[in-house]
C-alpha cells in the first residue's frame, strides 16, 4: 500500500542505469523525475507491463542520445559503449562469435552455480537449521580412516534401546529424534499403492521445528508403547491420494492392514529424511522396539541446545555411551558420530557438484581466453584508428574506454544469453538428476544466482578487456603511426600476449579432457564389469504380504510356494525364486555375524540374503562348490541351519580351503545361531558402483518372512511376461500393490548408474566444448600471426627460404607453446587426480594411460588446427607481400 502512495516505481535496474548516466546532482535527479512522471502516465493509461517496457526502452534510447553529463569522467565508458554497438553492428560475425562463446561459458557456470548454491550452500529449509545435527552410531572398525560427515550418512544402525538412553541422558540437545525408513501399501481409492515413509519418534518433528500445515505433527504421547496408531501425511500424498481433502485430519486410513488415524498434514516444503517421503508413522508399535543393543535400524537427528557447540555435543554423547557401556558391555565397541545435518545430507553430492562447477568455470576461462585473443587481434587492427583518435586529442582514458565499452557490451550480451540458456535448461536438467543428488528440488535460478552471474559478467568484461586496454593505453602514438606507415610486420608484444593465451587454452583443455576422461573410462569399466548374474531375461518384484505378519512359518512357506508355482507357469516363464535381498532391488541387510576361521572366531558384518532353493539357478549365479539349498534344508527344531557363501567371502576368511563344512554364526555372541556352509556360489554386485559382496545366503524355509523379492526368469517379450505376472499377483493379493519390472530396466534406474552416466555426459560435454573453443582460439591466433608476418615470410621466400624453413618458423613457436600448455595441463591433472578419483562412483581407472592419451589427442588437434594457416603462409606471394599496405 505504501507503494500506491509513492506512485508507480520504474524497474529498479533500469532506473539505476539511468542514474549512472545522468548523475545524482539536481540536474540528474530532475531527469530521473521526468522519466518517472512519464512512466506514471503510461502506467495509469495503459498497463504496468507496458510502462515498465517503455521505461527500459527509454533508458536504452537515452544512453545513445544523451552524450555524457556536464562533468566528463576520464574514462569515457558511455562513448565506448556507443562506439561498440556501432562497430559491432558493422561486424555482426565477430560479435556473434564472441557473444556465443561467452554465453556458453556463462550458461554452464550459471547452471553449475545454481546447483552448488541450491544443494551445498543454502541452509536446510528448517528454522535455525545450523543447530541441527545428525547422530549415527557406528563401529569405528567399519572404516579404514576416521569417519567424517560423508561416512555418517545413511547408517541406520542405532538400536531403539540405545536411542532412548541418549534421549534420557544427553544434555546438549533441546530435542532428539530417531527415524527409520518404512514402506507399505496404502489402501485408499480403487487400487492400493505402495507408499514410502518413515517411522519417527516425536522428537524428529520437535527438533526440525516445522509446524504442520493442517492438524498437528507427532508428539510425545504418540511414542508411548501401545498408543493409538497415528500418521502424518506429506503435502504431496495428501494432494495425490486424498485430493487435498480438508477433512482428512481425523480420518482413518489403512496402511499394511493396520488402521491409522491421520492427525496432520505437513507443508509442501517439508521433506524429511528425503524429499519424496510420503508419510510419518508414530513410534508406538511394540514391533518397532526390542532390547537388543548389538544391532539397530535407526538414525537420529537432534537440535543443539542454545550455546552448545558440536564438540560439546560429541563429548556429551561419549560420556553417555561410556555410562551405558557399564550396564551393557556390548555398547563398548560403538561410537556416535555427530555432524551438522546439512553436511551429512549433502556429503555424497559435494565432490561431484564442485567438480562440475570447476569444469564449467574452466570452459568459461577458455572462452574468455578466446575472446581476449579476438579482441587483441581487433585492437591491433585498430591501433591506427586509435592513434588517429589520440592525435585528435582523445586521452588514453578515452581510448581505454573504447576497448572497455566494447567488451562490456559483448560480456553483457553474453551474460544475458547465457543466463537465458541456463534458465531454459534448468528444468530438464533437474529432471535428469538422479536421486543421489539431495535437495534437487531446491535448485533454482533466483536473485542470488542472477547477482553472481551479473558480477561474473562484469568481471569477465574487465578480464577480457584488460590486455587489449593496457596495450591501447600504452601504444605510443608516433611509433604506431610510423609502424603503420611502414606496414606492421612485428609487434612482438602482441604475439607474447597471444602466446600466453595459447598456453592457457591448451593447459585447460588438457585438464578438462583428463577429468572427463577419468569419468568416461570409469563409466566404461563399470559397465563392462560382470555383475555376477544374468540381467537379461528376468523380471523382478517386491511382494509384501501384511496378512502374513502374524502367520507361522508353515503358512508363509505355503503361500510363497503357491505364488512361485503359479508364476512359474506364466507363459514364457522358466522359473521363479525368492530372495529377501537381491541386486537392484534397493535394500541391503547386514546383520552382525561371525566367521569361524583357523585363527578363531572373527566378529564381522556381512551381506546377507534369505533365498529359496532355485534362486541361484534363476538368477544365473553359478554354484562353484558344494550344493545349493534343497528340500532337506527345512525349518523346524531337528533341521541343521545351513548357509551358502559367496566366493569373495570364502577367499577372505578361508583362503585356499574348501568352504563346505565351515561355520558362520548369524547374530550376536549372545543370541546368534551357528550355520553350516553347504555350498559356495559366484560373486554378485548389488548395483552399478558396488564391489563384489562378501555375502552369505540362508534358506527361505529356515527363515520364513512376510515379504520377499520375487525374480522370474523368462523367454520372449518381457513386457508381456511382466503384465501376466502382475495379473497373477493381483488375483492372489488384490490389496497389495506390486510393480513388476524387467531387471534390465531396474539396472538403468540404478542411481549410481544414472549419476555416473550423467557426470560422464556433462563433463564430457564441457570438455568437448573446451577443446572446440581451444581449437578455434589456436586457429585464430595462428592465422593472425601468419597474416602479421606476411611481409616477413615474403622476404624469406624471396631470399630463397625453403618451405620447410618457413613452416618451421611459423609452426615451431606454436608447437613449443602447445607443448608448454600440455605439460602444464598434465601437471594440473596429476595434482587434481586424487580429488577426481574420490568423486568417481564406479571403477577407478589408471591415470597415466588416460593422461597420455589426452596429451597425444590435444597435440594432434593443435597440429591440425595450425595446418590451415601454416599452409596459407606457404602460398604467400612475395610480390603481393611487398605491396601490402
Amino acid at each position, binding site marked *: 500500500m505504501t507503494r500506491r502512495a509513492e506512485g508507480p516505481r520504474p524497474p529498479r535496474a533500469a532506473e539505476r542505469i539511468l542514474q549512472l548516466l545522468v548523475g545524482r546532482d539536481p*540536474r540528474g535527479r530532475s531527469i530521473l523525475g521526468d522519466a518517472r*512522471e512519464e512512466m506514471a502516465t503510461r502506467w495509469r493509461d495503459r498497463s504496468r507491463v507496458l510502462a515498465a517496457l517503455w521505461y527500459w526502452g527509454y533508458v536504452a*534510447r*537515452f544512453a545513445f542520445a544523451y*552524450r555524457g553529463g556536464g562533468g566528463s569522467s576520464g574514462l569515457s565508458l558511455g562513448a565506448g559503449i556507443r562506439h561498440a554497438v556501432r562497430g559491432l553492428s558493422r561486424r555482426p560475425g565477430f560479435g556473434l562469435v564472441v557473444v556465443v562463446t561467452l554465453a556458453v561459458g556463462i550458461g554452464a557456470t550459471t547452471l553449475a552455480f545454481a546447483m552448488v548454491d541450491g544443494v551445498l550452500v543454502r541452509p536446510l529449509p528448517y528454522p535455525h537449521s545450523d543447530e541441527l545435527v545428525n547422530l549415527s552410531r557406528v563401529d569405528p572398525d567399519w572404516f579404514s580412516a576416521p569417519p567424517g560427515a560423508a561416512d555418517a550418512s545413511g547408517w541406520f544402525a542405532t538400536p531403539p534401546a540405545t536411542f532412548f538412553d541418549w534421549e534420557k541422558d544427553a544434555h546438549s540437545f533441546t530435542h532428539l529424534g530417531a527415524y527409520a525408513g518404512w514402506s507399505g501399501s496404502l489402501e485408499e481409492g480403487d487400487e492400493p499403492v505402495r507408499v514410502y515413509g518413515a517411522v519417527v519418534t516425536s522428537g524428529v518433528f520437535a527438533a526440525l521445528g516445522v509446524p504442520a500445515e493442517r492438524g498437528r505433527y507427532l508428539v510425545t504421547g504418540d511414542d508411548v508403547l501401545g498408543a493409538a496408531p497415528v500418521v502424518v501425511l506429506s503435502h504431496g500424498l495428501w494432494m495425490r491420494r486424498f485430493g487435498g481433502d480438508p477433512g482428512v485430519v481425523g480420518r482413518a486410513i489403512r496402511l499394511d492392514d493396520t488402521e491409522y488415524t491421520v492427525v496432520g498434514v505437513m507443508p509442501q516444503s517439508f521433506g524429511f529424511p528425503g524429499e519424496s517421503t510420503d508419510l510419518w508413522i508414530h513410534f508406538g508399535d511394540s514391533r518397532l522396539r526390542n532390547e537388543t543393543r548389538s544391532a539397530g535400524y535407526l538414525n537420529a537427528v537432534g537440535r543443539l541446545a542454545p550455546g552448545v557447540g558440536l564438540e560439546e555435543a560429541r563429548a556429551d554423547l561419549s560420556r553417555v555411551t561410556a555410562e551405558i557401556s557399564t550396564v551393557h558391555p556390548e555398547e563398548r565397541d560403538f561410537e556416535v558420530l555427530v555432524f551438522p545435518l546439512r553436511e551429512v545430507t549433502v556429503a555424497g553430492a559435494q565432490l561431484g557438484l564442485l567438480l562440475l562447477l570447476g569444469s564449467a568455470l574452466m570452459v568459461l576461462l577458455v572462452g574468455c581466453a578466446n575472446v581476449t585473443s579476438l579482441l587483441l587481434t581487433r585492437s591491433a587492427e585498430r591501433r591506427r584508428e586509435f592513434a588517429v583518435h589520440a592525435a585528435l586529442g582523445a586521452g588514453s582514458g578515452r581510448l581505454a574506454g573504447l576497448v572497455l565499452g566494447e567488451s562490456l557490451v559483448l560480456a553483457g550480451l553474453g551474460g544475458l544469453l547465457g543466463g537465458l540458456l541456463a534458465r531454459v535448461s534448468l528444468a530438464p536438467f533437474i529432471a535428469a538428476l538422479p536421486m543421489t543428488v539431495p535437495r534437487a528440488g531446491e535448485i533454482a535460478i533466483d536473485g542470488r544466482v542472477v547477482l553472481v552471474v551479473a558480477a561474473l559478467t562484469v568481471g569477465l568484461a574487465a578480464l577480457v578487456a584488460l590486455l587489449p586496454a593496457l596495450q591501447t593505453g600504452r601504444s605510443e602514438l608516433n611509433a604506431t603511426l610510423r609502424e603503420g606507415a611502414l606496414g606492421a610486420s612485428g609487434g612482438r608484444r602482441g604475439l607474447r600476449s597471444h602466446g600466453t593465451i595459447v598456453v592457457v587454452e591448451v593447459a585447460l583443455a588438457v585438464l578438462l579432457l583428463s577429468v572427463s576422461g577419468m569419468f568416461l573410462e570409469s563409466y566404461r569399466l563399470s559397465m563392462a564389469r560382470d555383475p555376477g548374474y544374468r540381467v537379461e531375461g528376468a523380471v523382478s518384484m517386491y511382494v509384501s504380504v501384511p496378512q502374513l505378519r502374524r502367520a507361522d512359518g508353515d503358512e508363509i512357506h505355503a503361500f510363497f510356494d503357491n505364488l512361485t508355482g503359479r508364476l512359474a507357469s506364466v507363459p514364457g516363464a522358466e522359473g521363479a525364486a525368492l530372495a529377501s535381498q537381491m541386486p537392484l532391488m534397493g535394500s541391503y541387510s547386514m546383520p552382525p555375524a561371525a566367521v569361524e576361521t583357523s585363527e578363531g572366531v572373527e566378529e564381522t558384518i556381512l551381506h546377507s540374503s534369505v533365498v529359496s532353493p532355485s534362486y541361484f539357478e534363476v538368477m544365473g549365479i553359478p554354484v562353484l562348490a558344494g550344493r545349493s539349498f534343497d528340500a532337506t534344508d527345512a525349518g523346524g527344531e531337528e533341521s541343521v541351519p545351513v548357509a551358502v557363501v559367496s566366493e569373495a567371502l570364502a577367499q577372505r576368511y578361508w583362503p585356499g580351503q574348501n568352504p563346505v563344512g565351515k561355520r558362520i554364526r548369524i547374530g550376536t555372541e549372545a543370541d546368534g545361531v551357528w550355520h553350516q556352509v553347504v555350498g559356495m556360489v559366484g560373486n554378485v554386485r548389488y548395483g552399478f558402483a558396488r564391489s563384489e559382496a562378501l555375502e552369505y545366503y540362508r534358506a527361505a524355509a529356515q527363515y520364513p518372512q512376510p515379504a520377499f523379492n520375487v525374480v522370474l526368469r523368462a523367454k520372449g517379450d518381457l513386457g508381456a511376461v511382466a503384465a501376466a505376472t502382475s495379473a497373477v499377483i493381483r488375483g492372489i493379493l488384490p490389496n497389495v500393490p506390486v510393480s513388476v519390472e524387467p531387471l534390465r530396466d531396474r539396472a538403468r534406474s540404478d542411481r549410481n548408474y544414472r549419476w555416473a552416466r550423467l557426470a560422464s555426459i556433462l563433463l564430457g560435454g564441457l570438455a568437448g566444448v573446451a577443446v572446440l573453443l581451444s581449437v578455434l582460439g589456436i586457429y585464430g591466433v595462428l592465422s593472425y600471426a601468419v597474416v602479421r608476418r606476411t611481409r616477413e615470410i615474403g622476404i624469406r621466400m624471396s631470399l630463397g627460404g625453403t618451405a620447410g624453413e618457413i613452416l618451421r618458423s611459423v609452426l615451431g613457436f606454436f608447437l613449443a607453446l602447445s607443448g608448454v600448455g600440455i605439460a602444464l595441463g598434465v601437471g594440473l591433472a596429476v595434482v587434481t587426480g586424487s580429488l577426481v578419483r574420490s568423486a568417481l562412483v564406479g571403477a577407478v581407472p589408471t591415470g597415466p594411460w588416460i593422461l597420455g592419451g589426452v596429451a597425444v589427442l590435444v597435440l594432434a588437434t593443435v597440429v591440425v588446427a595450425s595446418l590451415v594457416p601454416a599452409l596459407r603462409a606457404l602460398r604467400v606471394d612475395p610480390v603481393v607481400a611487398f605491396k601490402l599496405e
Partner: protein
Amino acid sequence: MGNKPMGEVEHLVLLAVLRLGGGAFALDVLRELDREAGHVVSRGSLYKTMERLEAKGLLTWEVERGSPERGGHPRRRFSVTEAGVAELSEARARLLNMWDGVRALLETDR
C-alpha cells in the same frame, strides 16, 4: 557571446520555453515542440540541447520540489536569460533578412 549561431533545435527549444511562460518544465517543452512545431525530439537530445544552451548562458533553471508521482525527485523550471532573448531576436533578424525577397520566388515557383 562570440558563439557560432544557434542550431534549429536550440532555436526551437528557446522559443518553446518562452511560449510556455512561467511554467516551462522539460516535459512541457517536449510537448510544446511536438504540438506547435511538429518536431519530435528524443528526451536525451532535448536534455543535451538544454545543457548546451545553459553552457552558452542562454537558458537557466531553478529547482522545485517534485510530486509523489516523480518519486520525490525534483523538477526544473526553465527560463530564457536576457542573453537568450537577445540571441533570439538577433537570430530572428538574421533570418528575416535572409528571407527577404525569397517569398516571391517560392510562390512563383509553385
